[in-house]
């Protein structure tokens, strides 16, 4: 029997009748096994992909050892970021101070590895023993003639989000120090994509196909010299808003560069990211190219999506992510695959995030902030979940309970962004949800309904298309969709697109769900455009 901690109740929204008031952005409860890490972790994950910089962790060995080569962030050139450097402080350093050791370590590493810049991370005890990180960094910078940037990431000084800010502050010191020669008016920086499995390359390629110059990728496949001239770009596109909005805001204030929030996960969000950029520049040829790109890319993945969706229709998912923005995309992507999100949450979401998540999800979807393993296990069990999406720490919770799992964290080695990423995501989800191993797991065998659903051999209600008008729209297929906001919210449309008006398996128990118009999209939504574009292709062929 799993009981909830009283102190945690305000951060869980489970009762659909209760007024929505989600507590968040709080320090984790002591003794609750929070999935969050610390300030240092926040800085480390954001800066890690800068591949030609030296990353030196000033502290005892653990902080460096546990973050050695953990992210799947690829580099197209140097790979210095994959090394783990630490001053490895010992007892005498703690007693007498670690500045001397830091100075020596920095000098020898800079001489040996010849980086373009150095990031020096403060860990917990550095903040306590009083090493003057800034002074040592200034001294080495002057002596060695390169930027040596202190990152004030003492673990206890807040949450992971504060670590993001410290990382942004360090990056901001680089921005504006390079030449902006050769940067045109149609240009942008990609912020908040970390090139997991080459995702930044994919996104960069999309923007370049639109005709937009990519100045700096911060920090996926990042280079110091690119970051130094990032202030020459005309626009910042910010994914992973929790980690990088701070930098975008600073660049807006100082250099007047506007920014757009985007996500590259899922059909809707990926398409929207491209259309929004095209719209921002107000260039019709950009718009045309964006439509063509979306059309081609969507057409390429549809056959596979159709196949996966057929099996996944009606399955139930729980989503737990680091940042909330990813949760939005996942809820939408799951809907594209015909799946229902019955629990969603994040480590670092804010009040606005949770309001949006609530609008995006069903009435009875449980929302959690900074959850813990017991809460996750409780909801996975109670909600009869077929799939848990999270990070490595969440994986055994799913597996122990005989539930599929998809890793959507930064340790993964499979690209899930972009159109191609959605295909990979669908394959990942399909390969875990449909695996026959669950038939052997006692818990799943003990629950016949669940087991049948898992084995995919029973018609299951299509939850999202309980609304009659919605269904009608779906059935009429793409080009005739009257309400664009409806489309953006409707995975069923992809099904109709995929299956060519296949027979709907509606059942009486399918809940009628009100489709809320999404206020942020007044015009045609990316998906409707994507679908329209695809229809044109199909008509042409």
């Amino acid at each position, binding site marked *: 029997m799993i*009981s909830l901690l009283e102190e945690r109740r305000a951060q869980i929204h489970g009762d659909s009748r209760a007024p929505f008031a989600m507590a968040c952005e709080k320090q984790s409860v002591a003794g609750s096994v929070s999935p969050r890490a610390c300030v240092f972790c926040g800085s480390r994950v954001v800066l890690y992909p800068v591949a030609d910089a030296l990353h030196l962790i000033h502290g005892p060995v653990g902080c460096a050892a546990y973050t050695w080569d953990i992210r799947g962030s690829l580099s197209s050139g140097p790979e210095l970021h994959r090394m783990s450097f630490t001053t490895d402080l010992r007892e005498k350093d703690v007693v007498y101070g670690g500045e001397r050791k830091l100075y020596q370590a920095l000098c020898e590493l800079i001489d040996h590895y010849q980086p373009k810049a150095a990031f020096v991370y403060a860990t917990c005890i550095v903040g306590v023993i009083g090493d003057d990180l800034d002074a040592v960094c200034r001294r080495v910078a002057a002596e060695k003639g390169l930027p040596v940037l202190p990152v004030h990431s003492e673990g206890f000084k807040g949450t992971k989000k504060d670590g993001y800010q410290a990382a942004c502050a360090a990056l901001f010191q680089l921005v504006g120090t390079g030449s902006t020669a050769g940067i045109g008016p149609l240009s942008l920086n990609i912020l908040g994509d970390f090139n997991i499995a080459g995702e930044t390359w994919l996104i960069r390629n999309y923007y370049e196909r639109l005709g937009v110059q990519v100045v700096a990728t911060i920090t996926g496949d990042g280079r110091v010299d690119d970051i130094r001239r990032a202030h020459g770009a005309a626009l910042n596109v910010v994914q992973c808003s929790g980690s990088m909005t701070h930098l975008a805001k600073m660049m807006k204030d100082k250099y007047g560069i506007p920014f757009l929030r985007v996500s590259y996960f899922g059909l809707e969000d990926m398409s929207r990211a491209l259309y929004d950029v095209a719209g921002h520049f107000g260039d019709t040829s950009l718009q045309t190219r964006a439509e063509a790109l979306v059309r081609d890319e969507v057409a390429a993945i549809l056959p596979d999506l159709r196949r996966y969706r057929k099996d996944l229709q009606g399955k139930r998912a729980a989503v737990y992510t680091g940042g909330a923005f990813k949760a939005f995309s996942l809820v939408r992507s799951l809907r594209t695959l015909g799946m229902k999100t019955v629990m969603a949450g994040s480590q670092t979401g804010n009040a606005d995030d949770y309001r949006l998540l609530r609008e995006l999800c069903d009435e009875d979807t449980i929302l959690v902030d900074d959850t813990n393993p017991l809460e996750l296990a409780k909801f996975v069990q109670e909600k009869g979940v077929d799939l848990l999406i999270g990070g490595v720490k969440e994986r055994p919770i799913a597996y122990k309970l005989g539930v599929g799992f998809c890793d959507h964290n930064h340790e993964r080695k499979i690209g899930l962004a972009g159109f191609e990423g959605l295909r990979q995501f669908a394959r990942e989800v399909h390969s875990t949800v449909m695996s026959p191993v669950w038939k052997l797991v006692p818990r799943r065998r003990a629950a016949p309904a669940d087991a049948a659903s898992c084995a995919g051999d029973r018609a299951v209600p299509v939850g999202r298309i309980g609304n009659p008008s919605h269904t009608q729209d779906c059935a009429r297929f793409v080009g005739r969709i009257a309400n664009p906001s409806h489309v953006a919210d409707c995975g069923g449309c992809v099904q109709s697109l995929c299956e060519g008006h296949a027979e709907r398996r509606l059942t009486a128990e399918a809940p009628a769900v009100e489709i809320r118009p999404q206020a942020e999209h007044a015009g045609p939504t990316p998906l409707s455009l994507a679908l329209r574009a695809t229809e044109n292709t199909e008509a042409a062929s």
Partner: protein
Amino acid sequence: MTCDTTVSPTPPAAPSFVATRNACKLCTPLGACLAFAGVEGARTILHGSQGCATYIRRYMISHFKEPVDIASSNFSESATIFGGRDNLRAGLTNVARQYGPSVIGVATTCLAETIGEDVGMYLHEIRREPPAAGKSLPPVVHVSTPSYCGTHAEGFIATVRALVEQLAEPGPPGAHVNVFASMFSPADLRYLKEILREFQLPAMLLPDYSDTLDGPTWDEYQLIPRGGTPLESVRRTGQARASIEFTCVHDTKPSAGSWLCERFGVPQQRLGMPIGVAASDALFGVLETLSGRATPAQHVAERGRLIDAFVDGHKYLFDRRAVVFGEEDLVVGLVGLLRELGVRPVLCASGGESGRMRAAIEALAPELASEIQVCQAADFAELEDRAAGLRPDLLIGHSKGYWLARRLKVPLVRIGFPIHDRVGGARLLHVGYRGAQQLFDRITNTLLEAIQDESEVGYAYL
């Protein structure tokens, strides 16, 4: 970094660095978390920042593929300034309320140690306060594990000692034997229990995470995975007939066995890691003495088959050159196996720095002492610099050596902890005749595979 080489076959390839580059060790609290995970009904709290618990969870989960719940007292800036007593109290209360543990382990982090937290005193005070929500706390065992002192191996040993020191009770002498495990795999622990059972020797194995970190799927989520050393058994360690422990590099002072010897006069039998024939013989010999029985027939047979396998494969192994890395005791244990096979352990390295690894290797393999480079406080960058000139045929160590193996284009035989790039880390056997058999097969097959892959002809018959 220090490298102790009597006769170095090659001069040091690179200058020594002040910085640690790609550490070949983990921090002390990780060892504490692993040891506490082997006590029945235990939950662990790390007294410090949230990140320590999260990082260690991720590291252990990635190896064991099992839930590893480690709570944190979750220091904030004010706790760092004014002390973390309230955080610890809240942490203990919340862990007790959520998990209903039979014991809570509290390990400190470098932050708590640096600001001078007196956890013992805190616990004493907290116990005297009225219990929160009317529920009293279970026994709490605390251990000091600042990550700037020692490695995860020292954290493990310190925690086993803390458990005994804080739980052992005086009483009439019993017939049982204490067996203090080193950083064995769950498979090793299961096998050890099987051996002890077959000797019909009443024994207490501590820690025992053979079930808690390698269990079946569940019908219902378990707050604390089943298994582990019962608390009652730990309490009775002071009444045991003898203690066996497996370390040849760690100071006699901090170990559980030596404390029991001093405090309760429990005779102590120290062995190295029982890897290879001779070291396993030593273990079985001790068990024969303690049980008054001959080694059970099936183990004699297993030993026989092992030596037969050695004979069958010896030509593939003789004079091959291996680089060995990991915890110091594990490295020393492996040297024992490799010398029995005629493999030259040309470089033996550990991130640990007990200062005793060289002596232990010399004692074990005096004939090889002149040609083995022994590096303590080593990191992987240094290992790479040294190994390149040594022309190794294989690497033996945990999966963080993959990076090195790839660069040297030399195969890696994965053993120990962590195994993050293969399945089955928990199922690897290292100890006893069966462990030696598994290691022998894997080492030999790795070399055969390399021969096959490198061959232009590629025979399927070797």
